[in-house]
């Protein structure tokens, strides 16, 4: 594990630049998912010949791969837990390279698939979709790809596995690539959603194109999987940092009268001292006075007169504390944005809903909805359509059951400031909670605002402004300008 670092100091220095990356592997046992995870975990560690031979022995005894190493033996198959009746959703596994630390969300590929995969995909940057080279695109390939993109994953790696069983045929590989493009990608809006797809022929079992380029398929000019993972630009991360500033207030820290800090995790964007901000939904304004440093050296409790360790700037996904110039009323659940930011404020939205409970969704029933840091009352008034995740068809429906996905209309008992999930993952996601059992019943992703509250109407406009509005509406109807 010390890899090529000469000394421990060099190693530690390198570690300082190590990034984090989360991915989900999609496929069933038959696709070689466990073997792939076992392979990645195994190959990322220091490799010893004696270890290999020991696993080889085990594989002969217990494995299903004959004389070859059964790497799936290294990964828990989650089978025993299922037999014991334990509800498993996701198992998390860890490995690291010099460049990145990886968190794999490993989901069991059976009955609870949609619910489990949605959970694992909610935090993932990359989805690895496994396809058996002998079988090509299957129904489950479509299902996996749909759920991955629904949950906002922007980097998809289609790993065409078991290439050793089709003699590393380039023709077979290309046929599957075309099949995936036609039968899956064409239905997923990939261009609009900025999704990037990479294809790679591998053999998880034999290690082809995992750590190094395989000699068995020299026709493949791309990077091996580990290198692809290490070098991939993670769209989810860059968009989060580049997006407009959103800060759901999580906790108000008030140790004494001279300090009132608003704590939270920056959902997106960057904030600097001096920036003008608005608090939503109340729309009160202020300015950023100071930001508590992320690199506090002296953590001792400070009295009123002591100076604090502060910084000029903070960005997503930092957990930070912001102090404002003015004494305005702000509490947990409010959203701080930059002044004049375009945010929808409404009590009615359309949303994609993944149902995760044995108890079906009841329309018009009151649920608790937790979105960012606020918990409010909400109910679903209608189902626009139910999505068949296997065929991508839109079906009419009046109920929603476990593992089903639908587009619904959700109404809250008060107004909230929200972005669509595709624009902002942490502003547009929510969970549905049962008021009595406290169970988490579903997960939702806001699509769009239905009843737009005319925020602008609260302002007093000059005659010139009103005239300009009238002129724009008359001459440029295609702009969709609101009437003042």
């Amino acid at each position: 594990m010390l890899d090529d670092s000469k000394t421990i100091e060099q190693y530690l220095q390198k570690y300082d630049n190590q990034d984090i990356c989360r991915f989900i592997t999609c496929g069933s046992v038959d696709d070689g998912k466990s073997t792939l995870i076992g392979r990645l975990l195994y190959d990322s560690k220091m490799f010893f010949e004696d270890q290999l031979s020991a696993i080889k022995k085990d594989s002969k005894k217990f494995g299903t791969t004959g004389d070859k190493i059964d790497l799936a033996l290294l990964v828990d198959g989650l089978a025993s837990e299922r037999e014991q009746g334990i509800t498993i959703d996701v198992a998390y596994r860890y490995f690291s390279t010099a460049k990145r630390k990886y968190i794999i969300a490993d989901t069991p590929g059976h009955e609870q698939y949609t619910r489990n995969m949605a959970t694992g995909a909610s935090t993932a940057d990359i989805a690895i979709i496994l396809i058996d080279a002998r079988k090509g695109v299957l129904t489950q390939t479509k299902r996996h790809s749909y759920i991955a993109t629904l949950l906002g994953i922007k980097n998809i790696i289609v790993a065409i596995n078991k290439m050793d069983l089709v003699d590393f045929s380039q023709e077979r590989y290309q046929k599957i690539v075309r099949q995936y493009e036609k039968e899956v990608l064409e239905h997923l809006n990939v261009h609009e959603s900025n999704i990037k797809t990479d294809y790679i022929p591998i053999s998880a079992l034999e290690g082809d194109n995992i750590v190094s380029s395989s000699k068995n398929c020299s026709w493949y000019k791309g990077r091996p999987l580990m290198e692809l993972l290490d070098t991939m630009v993670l769209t989810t991360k860059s968009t989060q940092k580049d997006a407009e500033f959103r800060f759901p207030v999580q906790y108000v820290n008030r140790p004494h009268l001279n300090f009132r800090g608003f704590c939270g995790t920056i959902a997106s964007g960057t904030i600097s001292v001096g920036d003008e901000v608005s608090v939503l939904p109340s729309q009160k304004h202020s300015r950023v006075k100071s930001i508590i440093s992320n690199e506090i050296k002296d953590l001792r409790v400070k009295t009123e007169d002591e100076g604090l360790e502060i910084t000029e700037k903070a960005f997503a996904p930092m957990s930070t504390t912001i102090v404002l110039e003015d004494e305005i009323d702000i509490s947990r659940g409010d959203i701080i944005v930059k002044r004049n930011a375009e945010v929808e404020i409404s009590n009615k939205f359309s949303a994609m809903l993944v149902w995760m409970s044995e108890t079906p969704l009841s329309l018009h029933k009151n649920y608790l909805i937790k979105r960012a840091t606020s918990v409010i009352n909400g109910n679903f008034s209608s189902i626009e359509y139910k999505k068949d995740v296997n065929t991508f068809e839109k079906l009419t429906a009046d109920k929603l059951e476990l593992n089903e996905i639908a587009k619904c209309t959700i109404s809250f008992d008060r107004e909230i400031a929200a972005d669509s999930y595709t624009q902002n993952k942490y502003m547009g996601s929510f969970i549905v909670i049962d008021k009595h059992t406290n169970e988490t019943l579903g997960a939702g992703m806001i699509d769009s605002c239905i009843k737009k509250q005319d925020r602008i109407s609260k302002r007093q406009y000059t005659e010139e402004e009103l005239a300009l509005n009238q002129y724009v509406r008359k001459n440029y109807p295609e702009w969709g300008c609101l009437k003042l």
Partner: protein
Amino acid sequence: MNSFNNLKHLEAEAIHIMREVVAEFSNPAMLYSVGKDSSVMLHLLQKAFYPASPPMPLVHVDTQWKFKEMIAFRDKRAKEVGMELIVYSNPKGKELNISPFKHGSAMHTDIMKTEALKNMLNIYKFDAVFGGARRDEEKSRSKERIYSFRDENHRWNPKSQRPELWNIFNGRHKQDESIRVFPLSNWTELDIWQYIYSENIAIPELYFAKKRKVVEYMGTKIMLDDERVPKELRDNAKEEMVRFRTLGCYPLTGAINSNASTLQEIIQEMLLSTTSERHGRVIDSDGGASMEEKKQEGYF
């Protein structure tokens, strides 16, 4: 330095979890075990609530058999961070004069740790208790949620665990229910050491190699921490260069021979020894261990 590396991500995630719990639960506490993971967790709690003191007490379940150095370190740290320290020992253990040497480790653990923890929770009625467990520790932990729900008898019911999506946690609970919270879930052992190194976090001296009086006991090397060690063991003690990788009750905590006396040396030793440890396990399983056993053992 990278503007936002792996450790910064893990730090932000842990702080998010801590603030979420404090915002949604009325009576939280941090279970402080004095070890390296607890040290990291305490440091993160301080960061999360700076410039205030973390709004909860530190709770230590004292088995009466912890290393003396741990107790001294615990008291010093609690004073430094300005948090209330609650120390609880099971009075039944004191009454029966429970000793791991006399009653064995199982009985000692059951009365002085498991039962003590439940008693303590019943007395103080904490509704959220922070723990330093990590998912990489063993395979069965890899599926553990960050919020682990317990019923009124502190039992874990697998059926009542909730799916956790994004960074939205469902903290709703009934009156007598409570949660164990694991803000370090996504940290690996290596992350813990790297963070201790980069943030310069205080940890007990016992982690660093030093000449200490040790003796072979139940297949491990234990330290002669006080006069309660039976005489026949004391007579065979030798002074050796040793350190500890984990800290607990001294009669149950094995020392390892090591010369690693700095953090860098500990990290280096850890990087190298992980592989040899795994190597050892592979050989073990060669002796006819079943696949199921191997799975349970948790290879990685």
